[in-house]
């Protein structure tokens, strides 16, 4: 099989490519330049691209570098900023998977005659009648949450070779093969938010940030924030509400430039409505487990086609975040929490 291995320069994708080579596939490595990284380190920097190429040198396979900066900006970064302007908290990794890795890259791979695209995600695909997406074998490193946007068409052409391995085993394999990336630390969460400037600097360069009022449920002002666009529901710090009872952001209204706060009890909800539903195979209703962030513990719930009703109370999920629905190890699909 002709496989295009997406190689970030990290250890997981390095080992993914190595395993495919060991299995005898015709593998080509590709590193995507998604972001004009101004520094010498971190994702999409020349250093990362060099690391990926050094791995391909060891594996004896070709290495390509493709520039998808425009699409990444248009499909991931701009929407990320625009969503914040509306008081939403999106997950850009999911949009990157949807539009870049399993969109643009997969389309180009097919165009060039590759049978599949492999990545270093910790997730598994099992095919029995249809393609099932399962959690990675290493529960702590499982990345199935950010892959719920993949459907049958994508899963038919995806390979996640390290999904059956623990992270420890991945590192051991990399070391055994003498891959130069064996010791590299795990990557950060949002690749384009630089540690120096952080989310604030990125958003400030893209959208106007507005100071706002922090109000309680009676409408009384209890504090002020420098930028309502930077507040996420569930947040406790930085709301300028001073001492006294702990108050949490419950909702952000960027148009009115207000942040509504309440107690920990107010933060809890019993259900959440989902938009932009995606299903791995076919729509599912009924008993599910709902996972509300990449590393959250899944909770029992029911889904009626539009709302997820939690068994018991659940901490509010910020609008813009994805809720992924599972049964056991299997990803069924998911959606985005509406405003």
């Amino acid at each position: 099989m002709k496989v295009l291995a997406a190689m970030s320069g990290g250890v997981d994708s390095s080992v993914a490519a190595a395993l495919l080579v060991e299995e005898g596939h015709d593998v080509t490595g590709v590193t995507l330049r998604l972001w004009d990284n101004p520094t010498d380190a971190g994702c999409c920097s020349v250093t990362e691209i060099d690391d990926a190429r050094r791995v391909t040198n060891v594996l004896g396979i070709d290495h390509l570098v493709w520039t998808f900066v425009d699409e990444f900006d248009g499909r991931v970064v701009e929407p990320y900023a625009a969503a914040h302007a509306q008081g939403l908290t999106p997950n850009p990794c999911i949009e990157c998977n949807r539009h870049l890795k399993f969109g643009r890259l997969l389309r180009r791979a097919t165009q060039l005659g590759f049978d599949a695209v492999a990545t270093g995600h910790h997730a598994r695909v099992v095919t029995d009648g249809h393609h099932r997406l399962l959690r990675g074998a290493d529960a702590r490193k499982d990345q199935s949450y950010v892959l719920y946007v993949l459907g049958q068409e994508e899963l038919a052409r995806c390979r996640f070779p390290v999904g059956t391995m623990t992270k420890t085993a991945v590192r051991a394999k990399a070391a055994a093969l003498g891959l130069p990336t064996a010791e590299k630390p795990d990557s950060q969460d949002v690749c384009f938010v630089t540690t120096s400037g952080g989310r604030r600097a990125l958003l400030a360069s893209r959208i106007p940030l507005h100071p706002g009022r922090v109000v309680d449920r009676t409408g009384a002002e209890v504090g002020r924030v420098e930028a309502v666009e930077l507040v996420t529901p569930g947040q406790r710090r930085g709301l300028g509400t001073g001492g006294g009872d702990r108050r949490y952001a419950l909702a952000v209204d960027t148009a009115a430039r207000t942040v509504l706060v309440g107690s920990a009890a107010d933060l809890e909800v019993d259900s959440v409505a989902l938009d932009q539903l995606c299903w791995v195979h076919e729509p599912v209703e009924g008993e599910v487990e709902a996972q509300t962030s990449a590393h959250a513990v899944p909770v029992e719930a029911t889904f009626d086609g539009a709302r997820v009703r939690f068994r018991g109370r659940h901490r509010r999920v910020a609008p813009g975040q994805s809720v992924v629905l599972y049964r056991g190890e299997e990803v069924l699909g998911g959606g985005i929490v509406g405003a």
Partner: protein
Amino acid sequence: MASPLAHAYLDWAATTPVLPEAVEAMLPFLGERFGNPSGSHAVSREARKALDEARDTVAACLGARPSEIVFTGGGTEADNLAIIGAHAVRPGPTVCSAVEHHAVLHACDALGDSRLGPVDADGVVDLDRLAALLDPSVSVVSVMLANNEVGTIEPLAEVAALVRQRAPHAVVHTDAVQAFPWLDVAALAAPADLVAVSAHKFGGPKGVGALVVRQGVTVRPIIHGGGQEGDRRSGTHNVAGIVAMAAAMRATVDRRQATVDRVRALRDRLADGLLAAVPGCVETVDRATKIAGNCHVSFEGVESEALLVLLDAAGVYGSAGSACASGAVDPSHVLAAMGLSRDRALGALRLSLGPATTDADVDLALAAIPPAVERVRAG
């Protein structure tokens, strides 16, 4: 990883194979004639003599005096020395064309106050708009002799005349790196005060180049040390490289007219063949305004980043925009300056020919490219 059996190297603008004459000339200096030309004994004198002879050859090929030649570690260093070194002795704004190589563009940027001269749709610098950027405060004006991406030849004599008239204190620099294999640089660059060339573009080794610094023009060194090259470029001479560059220059100049005539015909057959065989293929600039070895086209609805993967597999080695350090393809500043749409720029393919390009190379390219374009479009 193995290269296909039949292949066509059509990336001569990126680099060229070292000519046998150049290899032969340099070998003794990697062996018994290893001396440092700056010393005073017999071993040094051997190297010094070779360096003197190489300097004479390079000077003759560039229309300069031997004392006007500064050997450098390549074209980029020559451009940097010209711009930064000239600016250091006469501070003021720099002016360059918008289609310069990054060695010039980024050197000007590094100095702060830089002005960009617009070009027309063929990549030719707009003289009227250039004139508007010139005034007596300007320190350095840099306009290349031939462009590395699209091959356009710039009107250097007119540029120089304009500079003398409107910016009398400025020096004129020309990056002749891409021009040298194809044009009579000695004559065409005569109006310039500073002229940069790079050996590996004409059959010499990588890492060696030269800057002509005309008598009476001062450049402050950017590399300090033992004072070699008339205190303009310190560092022990790369004797083997310099000797090889001189041999490659001599061979290139001796055969240049014959090469140009032969390669132009090959280029025309390649370009005409692509235009005829591929719907939506557009030639980027007027062939009358460019060097003989450059074929630059774009394919509607095709991303050359994808096309290059198929051509690579088919053994046809070309390029898209200007390659960046990571090996990725960056959107071309040259095509943007010429006003090409982004879509056309993303579908651009540069095939650059050289003295050893054959009919078989052109045949292979013409056989491989049309189906590859079709496949990318179908996908």
